[in-house]
């Protein structure tokens, strides 16, 4: 399968990419920079194609990502993983960082979905779209209101994508992921992390492997009756 994945240079995106490559998929990966881990992956996997692209730019999705990078390749899945977090109290909300986060987390992914669906229509592909959402959209956390709102937007967009394009066999689902030990949560203090983990049934961070396995399942035919869902991978957040 040909799979487009965003945010592949580190954390969850890197784990998902590694997992999908090991299952023999052809990956079209996007990230802002190339980390050491990504370089290693590029050197060891011929079926990994990489594009340096900043998702803050929603205007060049068609030319840079679809015309030049993906070209005529039929896409079977899109994993919308890249995201940035703007953490602050609502009383400190500022327009500039809010808009910039919405561009990366919501607007550009919506444009990518547009061209993914167009690619799938052209090639008659019953493709699978997977958004990485966050438990913060469902269980509030102090300071995450703005970030959580981007994930809520994606969940609504995904549900409607599923309804609009289901007739063509195109599926869309969200993985509602709990807190992981990645860069995204690196600004939290050990006490804050501990408090968050205490709110889960399993009392620990979410294992990225569990998320990668679910992504893999949702891209496969095995999940062909699953669409419009939010699947919680959150260690049983209470």
């Amino acid at each position, binding site marked *: 399968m040909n799979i487009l994945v965003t945010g592949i240079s580190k954390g969850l995106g890197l784990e998902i990419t590694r997992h999908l490559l090991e299952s023999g998929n052809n990956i079209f990966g996007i990230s802002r920079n190339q980390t050491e881990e990504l370089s290693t992956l590029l050197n060891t996997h011929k079926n990994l194609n990489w594009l340096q692209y900043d998702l803050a730019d929603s205007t060049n999705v068609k030319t840079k990502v679809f015309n030049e990078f993906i070209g005529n390749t039929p896409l079977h899945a899109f994993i919308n993983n890249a995201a940035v977090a703007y953490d602050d109290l609502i009383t400190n909300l500022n327009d500039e960082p809010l808009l910039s986060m919405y561009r990366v987390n919501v607007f550009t992914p919506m444009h990518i979905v547009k061209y993914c669906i*167009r690619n799938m*229509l*052209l090639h008659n592909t019953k493709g699978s779209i997977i958004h990485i959402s966050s438990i913060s959209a469902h269980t509030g956390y102090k300071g995450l209101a703005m970030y959580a709102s981007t994930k809520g937007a994606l969940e609504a967009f995904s549900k409607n994508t599923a309804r609009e394009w289901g007739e*063509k066999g195109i599926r869309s689902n969200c993985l509602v992921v709990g807190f992981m030990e990645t860069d995204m949560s690196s600004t939290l203090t050990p006490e804050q992390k501990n408090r968050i983990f205490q709110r889960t049934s399993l009392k620990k961070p979410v294992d990225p492997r569990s998320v990668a396995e679910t992504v893999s399942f949702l891209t496969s035919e095995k999940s062909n009756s699953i669409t419009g869902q939010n699947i919680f991978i959150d260690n049983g957040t209470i």
Partner: protein
Amino acid sequence: MRDTVHQIINTVLANRGKKLIDSLNDSMRLRDDIGFDSLDLAELTVRIEAQFNVDIFEKGIISTVGEIFERLK
């Protein structure tokens, strides 16, 4: 160009299990005469763009076959 557009229209109809059209004329309405719904129209614009590099709906929705050729000029 006419034959290609005719072929594309029939491909879209066939993909939805709809009745193909034998001939094409400019006054034909995409929805009422050809039988396209909104999903078919989306597929039509994608297939025409792949062939002619023009997004026929970019400047607004069109409703007849003649308007397709207007946009492709």
